[in-house]
């Protein structure tokens, strides 16, 4: 563990700066635009860059807190169900007579409550793995959504509500602005506050953090709460885009979100990664699927390509770490490093 810490401190020199995963992502990002504009004559125009993000940014709101979760060495697979539950509660409350602004607040509150519940269990029962806890709450939240709405759809929202998913301020979609604000806030929280340092610390060694006086339980609860809150925000935007909701919305969002975070260079064993990586990954996957959609590629081929991109990038990341590991610490082999985890 101490070796890892040293590695982190030494990574400040210029060579390491340009040898970062994020630079590779930037290259992939640019490459995708080049390939896409070569593939389709409809790709390269202003509309693509202004309007397209609306169609994939809804889940990107969860990518931000999920980066925290994974840096801490945890995982949260209940986010898709949290989105569904918040959305269903909001629609049901609105149809039962609650004014829309209050219904929106209720949506965020339900999301936060789901996150808080996850967080409290994780903090109070640290011996249970986060994966098991959130798999349980995943089925629970989705189940509650089904109990509330059964198999029906609910909608009929006021006209102004569609502004969230479809409206623009000037030429920039409202959703893009909202996402940019959230991204900056989460970036500052992770990289410029002691809270962020603790998140990294917990990813490296939870016990050491606890013994150094960090309130690890509190941090887990706050991060889970933020995850739930952002799932609520995703629910607001997703529901606005669809104009109606069902208990089976946002199915599989958790895996898409985790895939984006991992593609963004955040290590699932914790402690490594920056907010910038997952942000780039969101746009890489978004524009890649949009571009391939423009040439009418079939849905299955698209899944194969995204899967291949994911596994390739994870492997490249792995090779790079092996190399840097040898350069920095000639005495320790890759095997020894693995056993240290």
């Amino acid at each position, binding site marked *: 563990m101490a070796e890892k810490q040293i590695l982190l401190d030494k990574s400040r020199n210029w060579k390491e700066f340009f040898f970062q995963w994020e630079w590779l992502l930037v290259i992939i990002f640019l490459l995708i635009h080049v*390939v896409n504009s*070569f*593939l*389709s004559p*409809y*790709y390269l125009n202003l*509309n*693509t860059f202004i*309007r*397209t993000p609306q*169609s*994939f940014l809804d889940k990107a709101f969860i990518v931000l807190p999920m980066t925290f979760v994974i840096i801490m060495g945890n995982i949260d697979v209940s986010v898709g169900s949290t989105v569904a539950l918040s959305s269903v509660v909001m629609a049901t409350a609105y149809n039962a007579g609650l004014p829309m602004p209050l219904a929106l607040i209720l949506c965020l509150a339900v999301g936060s409550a789901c996150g808080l519940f996850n967080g409290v269990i994780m903090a109070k029962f640290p011996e249970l793995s986060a994966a098991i806890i959130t798999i349980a709450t995943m089925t629970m939240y989705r189940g509650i959504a089904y109990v509330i709405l*059964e*198999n*029906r*759809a609910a*909608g009929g929202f006021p006209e102004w509500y*569609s502004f969230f*998913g*479809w409206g623009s301020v000037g030429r920039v979609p409202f959703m893009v602005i909202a996402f940019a604000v959230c991204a900056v806030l989460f970036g500052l929280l992770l990289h410029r506050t002691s809270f962020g340092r603790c998140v990294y610390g917990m990813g490296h060694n939870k016990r050491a953090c606890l013994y150094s006086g960090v309130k690890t339980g509190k941090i887990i609860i706050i991060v889970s709460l933020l995850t739930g809150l952002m799932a609520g925000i995703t629910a607001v935007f*997703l529901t606005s*885009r*669809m*104009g*109606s909701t*069902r208990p*089976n*919305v*946002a*199915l*599989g969002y958790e895996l898409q979100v985790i895939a984006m975070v991992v593609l963004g260079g955040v290590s699932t064993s914790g402690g490594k990664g920056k907010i910038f990586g997952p942000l780039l990954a969101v746009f890489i996957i978004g524009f890649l*699927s*949009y571009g*391939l*959609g*423009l*040439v*009418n*590629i*079939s*849905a*299955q*081929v*698209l*899944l*194969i*390509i995204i899967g*291949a*991109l994911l*596994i*390739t990038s994870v*492997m*490249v990341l*792995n*090779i790079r770490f*092996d*190399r840097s590991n040898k350069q920095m610490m000639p005495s320790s082999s*890759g095997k020894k490093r693995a056993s240290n985890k």
Partner: protein
Amino acid sequence: MRKVFAKVIILTVIAAFLVPAVLFAAGAREEVGERHAFVFKNTGNPYGEKQMEGFKEGVEEMGHQAILRAPDQPTAEDQIQILEQLIAQNVDSICVTANDYDALEPVIRNAMNAGIVVTSADSATNPASRATFVNQADAEMIGRTLIQAAYDMIGGAGDIAILSATSTASNQNLWIEWMQEELTDPKYDDVELVEIAYGDDLRDKSVAETEALLRSHPDLECIIAPTTVGIAAASRVITDNDLIGEVYITGLGLPSEMAEYINNGACPYMFLWNPIDVGYLAAYTNMALVNEEITGAAGETFEAGRLGSYEIVEADDGGTEVLLGPPFRFDPDNIDEWKDVY
């Protein structure tokens, strides 16, 4: 060093898979004449593939280009993304088989504002989001016919259940409404509809829902599955559990998939229209709208290639529709000649 080498080799292999995929995509880039797009509910649905086939046939007969799309999951979210991509390609017309009656409205409004003709076929969008709707058959006739079939199979009394597609599919929901309407007739006093289950048009989920129906209602005598995926899954379960003759399956099924079960008695008979014709009629409807032969108002008529002349009529939901024709009955006498057709 050898480990790194092995990893580089694996990467190369993956790249070797990726390059043809991208080249394949590049090969798809050719443009001739008008482009008409068809968006189905999801991939891997033989019924949808037949519709796409018919749409393609119709569009290409007139020398235009057909774009066939379907998301991998039967959700409105994914269909919205596909529609946005089609708008960006500035296609001439789009025909969509909706996963949700209302959810596509905002994106379709954008398409219409961009001058694209939008219709729906098989499963309708709301009247504000379509020029017209290509309907397989009269919903009332489908609903009533299926209940009469079930009544006939169970001998006039007993428990029946419905295994539908997704809970938001507008076509299935309308048929189920008519089934419930038919059941209010005093003739059906001894028939009880015990449950409506949703298999989401996914094979595994439909199988699981059928098994759950059989477990929770031991006296169940008939399952009506008004979806091709559901009826095949339910028949499979009945066959595998040796329940042929105890529980009957009927509904709407593809002859090619159902021949086995119609011959073994799991499904005594079922109904369907020709899905190829649904797609074909949708193609001609879209082309007529693009050429401004018709506007989608009730009372207009147009020619649909080999199918002859069609008239646009008022639909129950306040919009307009084109009716393909009455559903066709498949039983052990005629299934063998149809199973190779579609």
